[in-house]
């Protein structure tokens, strides 16, 4: 009998129940990342960095050696780890408050140095753990606890597109934005992870995958409606696709 689906729980993922809300994208993204590393046979030679935010506890679920980093500093921490273990797979896993706000310096400079690790960037357009405040990625008009009438351009500017920004940096060799709102997009997201890890293993430079993800709790939506919201509002502003890849693969 041919297996059409194999759970990675107990292998790439631990048996622990997650603390994430129903409908949160972290569970899917954790699974995709760990499946990809497990399929490479590299779980024992992988070191991850978890951020500040809901996924600070990612190391409870991702079955590889990991450490936590202070808010926004994960790319600097991953830089240090990769320099000690250049042949290991090293990744940072970060949210949008962490990466696109307080940690913008660290991510830009890690990319500039062409650090040979991968960053998985989970963009759900809000600060989750702290309770739904406006993030740099919060959409125009989107309500948050620090923009109760919706984000206004005159006050907060326009949301920042991190993948497009990083793609301008020479040291960033692989940059792709995916979404985890539909089964088809989830499958594409996994392909992106595998391409990014391949770039890392070939030591070509910095690799980056942005995931458009949902936060039903802080968006005030049901899980299903939150997934719809990703497709209707986020993808139009944050287009999916590969922004940067090694020359020979174009």
């Amino acid at each position, binding site marked *: 009998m041919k297996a059409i689906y194999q759970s990675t729980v107990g292998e790439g993922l631990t048996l622990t129940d997650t603390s994430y809300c129903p409908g949160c994208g972290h569970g899917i993204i954790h699974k995709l990342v760990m499946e990809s590393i497990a399929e490479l046979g590299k779980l024992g030679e992988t*070191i991850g960095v978890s951020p500040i935010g809901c996924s600070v506890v990612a190391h409870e679920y991702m079955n590889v050696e*990991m450490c936590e980093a202070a808010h926004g500093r994960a790319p600097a921490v991953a830089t*240090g780890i990769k320099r000690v273990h250049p042949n290991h797979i090293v990744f940072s896993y970060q949210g949008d408050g962490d990466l696109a706000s307080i940690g913008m310096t660290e991510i830009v400079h890690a990319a500039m140095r062409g650090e040979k690790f991968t960053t998985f960037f989970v963009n759900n357009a809000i600060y989750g753990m702290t309770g739904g405040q406006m993030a740099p990625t919060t959409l125009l008009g989107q309500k948050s606890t620090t923009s109760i009438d919706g984000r206004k351009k005159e006050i907060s500017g326009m949301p920042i597109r991190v993948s497009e920004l990083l793609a301008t940096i020479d040291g960033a060799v692989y940059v792709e934005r995916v979404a985890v709102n539909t089964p088809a997009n989830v499958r594409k997201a996994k392909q992106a992870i595998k391409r990014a890890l391949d770039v890392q293993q070939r030591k070509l430079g910095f690799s980056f995958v942005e995931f458009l993800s949902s936060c039903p709790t802080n968006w005030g939506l049901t899980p299903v409606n939150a997934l719809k919201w990703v497709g209707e509002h986020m993808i139009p502003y944050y287009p999916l696709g590969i922004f940067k890849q090694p020359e020979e693969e174009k």
Partner: protein
Amino acid sequence: MAERVLMKGNEAFAEAAIRGGCRFYVGYPITPQSEIPEFMSHELPKRGGTFIQAESELGTINMSYGIGCAGGNVFISSASPGIALMQEGFSFLCSAEVPLVAMNVSRSGAGIGGIQPGQCDYNQVTRGGGNGDYHIPVFAPSTMQDAVDIIYESFEIADRYRNPVMILADGMMGQMMEPVVLPEPKTLYKDEADIANYKPWALTGSKGKANRNRIKSYHAHPAELEQYIDYLYEKYMRMEKELQRAESYHTDDAEIVFVAYGSMARIVREVLEVLRKDGIKAGMIRPISLWPFPTAPFEALNPEVTKVVISAEMSKGQMIPDIRLALKDRIPVKLFSRTGGIIPSTEEIVAFVKTLRKELK
């Protein structure tokens, strides 16, 4: 005796670090310590190490945290405002139990202040600016040789306690040249593959291990966090007992005892000679560890003999609370202070003592 070499302080600090086991250095330019990253950038790669120029001091401390998590022996350096920017990281490393050796070649003043030598980082380094209950051992060498020796030893201290260690120097020590005898290079671990043996707790990949390692700072449950804080507290108390270091000069018969560290202690040593020639019995306690503050030499002072203790600092009395605690307020404490980057002369300290003696009579 091994050969004496004439070296600039900053370069001697870096060389001592390499010989002491530093395999990674992360730095960011700031006066008056920029010769350390400069030296490391060309010297460390030649000796099998890695140099990274960070984008900021925040980058520096967090890259070092990553290196430390991965088991690499790492050295960083900066100067006062740069150290201030790293405080988040120091707190984090302590809470995650990650070793590191940091050097502060300090300057003067708050804010930007000035770039000339100062000692006004005393509170910053002994109390820390980061959040939480944590401590970092701080050693304050006073000569180049002291500095070389303590930097050389610090990597093992940091690894032993799994905690950052700070070396506090100042701009004068960083910029001056003085002959030093360099210790033999030592190897703490052979190569990348050997790290897991040397530091079983480090992140080296879970392959071949019974349990994967995780390094964390966040504790969601109060009871679990309290237990962890208690565990760290016990370690800090052990460090407090085991790491106190000081030197006493002519304190037995001294009516006046100076307390001075770092560059100031060098000057006071000459002051003692001048005063004793003039028939004034003066001595000095030189704290080598600033945290933990060495209490034994203060307990040994006899109030019948020693009438006054002078805290000689290039800061505004920041050391006095520690001195008073160590003395249990048995002897009055006065302050001699120059700031702004001004290094006092022997003559002005001698004059200060003579005036003070008149006032006390």
